[in-house]
């Protein structure tokens, strides 16, 4: 966040809060509706832009992306359709499935719930930005080792959620992993494997589900 206040641990100004609406971190917080409306009016009054395309510069995976976007274009749309970064997936386009999860300043965020124009100047990391020189990260490697992916469409989102968790919590518990992934949905049913992968990536003992091959005789 650019707002200096927000850098203080545990402190969110109302303005930085408004800017971060859409992050999973603030889900559930309660704010007076009138106060939100007042603040929105102030923020909006700062500058009127659009509705036509305007220059937008995004910092994605350490590189500058210079785009011409209508202000209503979401970060997900900008990544997937105005550049070739299609790794972040669109599963619902309304902040419910988590397939589009990216990190903004290391915080997992639904990119479909952010307008591209509002995340200028922030460090955006997408699934394409994790592996360096083609080498899988510990999280990606653990997903592969544990078969924590099937069709793979939800996978980038889960990898981002688990990666963001392990950045701030080196020794997660099962509840920590559940909490970190509560905003991600997988339809193929890879959940038990994702739990295993998160633990493997963290280097903590993996509570593997019991499976056994028995010869029928």
């Amino acid at each position, binding site marked *: 966040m650019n707002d200096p206040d927000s850098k203080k641990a545990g402190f969110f100004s109302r303005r930085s809060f408004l800017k971060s609406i859409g992050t999973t971190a603030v889900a559930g917080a309660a704010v007076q509706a009138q106060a939100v409306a007042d603040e929105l009016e102030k923020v909006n009054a700062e500058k009127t832009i659009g509705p036509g395309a305007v220059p937008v510069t995004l910092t994605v995976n350490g590189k500058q992306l210079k785009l011409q976007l209508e202000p209503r274009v979401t970060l997900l749309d900008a990544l997937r359709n105005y550049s070739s970064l299609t790794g972040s997936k669109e599963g619902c386009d309304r902040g419910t499935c988590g397939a589009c999860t990216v990190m903004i300043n290391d915080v997992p965020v639904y990119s479909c719930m952010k307008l591209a124009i509002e995340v200028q100047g922030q460090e955006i990391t997408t699934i394409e930005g994790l592996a360096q020189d083609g080498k899988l990260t510990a999280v990606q490697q653990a997903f592969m080792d544990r078969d924590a992916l099937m069709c793979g469409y939800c996978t980038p989102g889960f990898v981002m959620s688990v990666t963001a968790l392990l950045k701030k919590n080196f020794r997660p518990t099962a509840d920590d992993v559940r909490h970190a992934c509560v905003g991600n949905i997988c339809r193929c049913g890879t959940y038990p494997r994702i739990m295993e992968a998160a633990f493997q990536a963290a280097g903590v003992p993996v509570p593997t589900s019991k499976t056994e091959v*028995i010869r029928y005789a």
Partner: protein
Amino acid sequence: MPDTPAPKLSWPAETKYISHSTHRIDAPPKLKGEARYASDIQAEGWLYGMILRSKWPAAKITAVNLEPALKIPGIKAAILVKEGERVVHFYGEEIAAVAGATKSACLDALKAIEVTAEPLGFAVRENDAKKDDSPHVWADAPNVGTPKSTEKGQVDQAFGECDAVVEGFFTTQVAIHHPMETHGNSASWTDDGLTCWASTQGITSVRDGLAGPLKLDHSKVRVITDYMGGGFGAKFGPGPHGLLAARLSREAKAPVRLMLTRFDQALAVGNRPSSFQKIKLGAKSDGTLHAYDLDNYGTSGLGTGGTSAGGGSGIDFPAPYIYRIPNTRVKHTSVATNAGPSSAFRAPGNPTASFGMESIMDELAVKLGMDPVELRIKNDPSEIRQKEYKLGAERFGWKDKYKKPGSSPGVVKTGIGCAGSTWGGGGSNKTQAEVQINPDGSVEVRMGVQDVGTGTRTVLAVIAAEVFGLTPEQITVRVGDTHFPPGPGSGGSTTCASVSPTLFATCTDALAQLQTQAGVTDAKGDNWTAACKKLGVNPLVVQGKFAQGLSSRGTGGVQFAEVEVDTETGLVTVKKIAGVHDCGLIVNKITTESQIYGGMIMGMGYALYEERVMDWQSGVVLNPNFETYKLTGLSDIPEFDLVLLNMPERGVIGIGEPAIIPTASAIANAVANAIGARVNSLPITPAKVLAALGKVPPSTATAS
């Protein structure tokens, strides 16, 4: 196809990769975000496509004006689904489509299209549509179809001969597939023909389904599916969206990517039909089943089909499910409603059939004072499943855990239940494959099959590696292209049993040819590179067909569930699911396990969370999103105990579908065992649990 006489093949007894675990060979591109799914395709100059859908559950469309849409900046094409006056039959039916340079332009264009319509009467609930005075879904046909009835033995007389008779009424919901990647495709129509990058389970069915209506030769249509994000039965054929994308591309003279929204997904591209099952079951005092009567109706949406014998998308299902009963009467009646069409959904008919049958079996066990597992073993004709029950019950600790229904003390009660599954599977003898061995030793496998997330690519790499004595990483697997030799559609749990024997036979032949050409007796493993070098300039390309004797049909599994039910809130928490599944010859262990987990987890959703809700007054789908259509999440996951029953002598069989079948039934039986009252309706919501306990009045919302 006549099988050419060939030496009889058999799977090797000692293996390095087959029956072991190989990580998905396509995991790295998927994990790095490099894998290009149908929805990721960015063909040169591509446009967005979007569909305008009916906002009426039934209406006569008298006029559609596309002109205002065409005036929106960036819009390149706007087309009608059908010319002239027409009737739409459900909320979400396709009316028109647009193609434009941006998503925003398309959204604006959809809003601009002027539709003149005369709303018609409608019925979205089965029991409303059944009424004599209900509006007709189809003007010239009754909503209630002709029942499909079968009878065996002397049912009425047989019930009189029974020592115990139980009756029940069981209902199941309409459930929606909701793959994470929605239906859709990118279509590019040029003078050379049509190329379609489709999110599909059947590239061949998409090609043929496009070529026919668009009057193109099959040879002019190419369908590509490198990666796709799940289908679960709903993604066969091009669908209306496929045809519209192709037509928009022709009109706009540019590639068009048309992916459905999540909203669309809940309305128009398939679901699992509902059921209302009135069941009567009778047995002798020793538990031998003697008589069975089923009267079932349900809706598959606007269609009145229902004679699919449980194999497709109809409302009928196999009955009586699994068990041996000498006297049976079965009646299925399909009820048309103003709702989106059903389609095959993972083990069509079977989870539905299982819920009714396994529920009434437990009622019978209680009445007879028999152990539910014993009752099943006694009446199950499958030796394999009998053994699975014994094995599973022992691992699960069934005998220690099983208590009289409702006897669990306290507010949060525990209970256990079990259920079985049966499935066909088997391989398709139409499958073909091509293997190319290059002089540098590299190997390419080409098959016109698609990997829908089940691990088909990896299975192919495992088999080629095994035959050639290489590692799976050394095999380049190319699938998902109609330019390759034809493979099966990914349905009916037949893919693995189709492609494995085919590729095994092709690779075995290729190895023999390589050895002949290179003049060596063993080209495998360490000798591979030297042998391939002797090919000279040209690669060796070998085509092959499905080989008999390496796969088989018919599979079964059993599952056990343990639940906790909070009798104050009605919340059901699944604590454990144990499964024993017949896996035939396991090709790749780790992906087999994943398939079974996936089935169980999807089965949990069917049991507890998922239900399409329609508003009878407005005719709309009320929960076309993931906020209100609830799917199983990571936090819901219980402890699992999985046994893969390995029977290599059976060859390859399927596992994707059998795994989902018994889960909901086992959970439902566990809930009944916990609280001593049966929730006879899926999904088992807290409200239904509290109603079964007599703490709240039963809901009339879905059953009136």
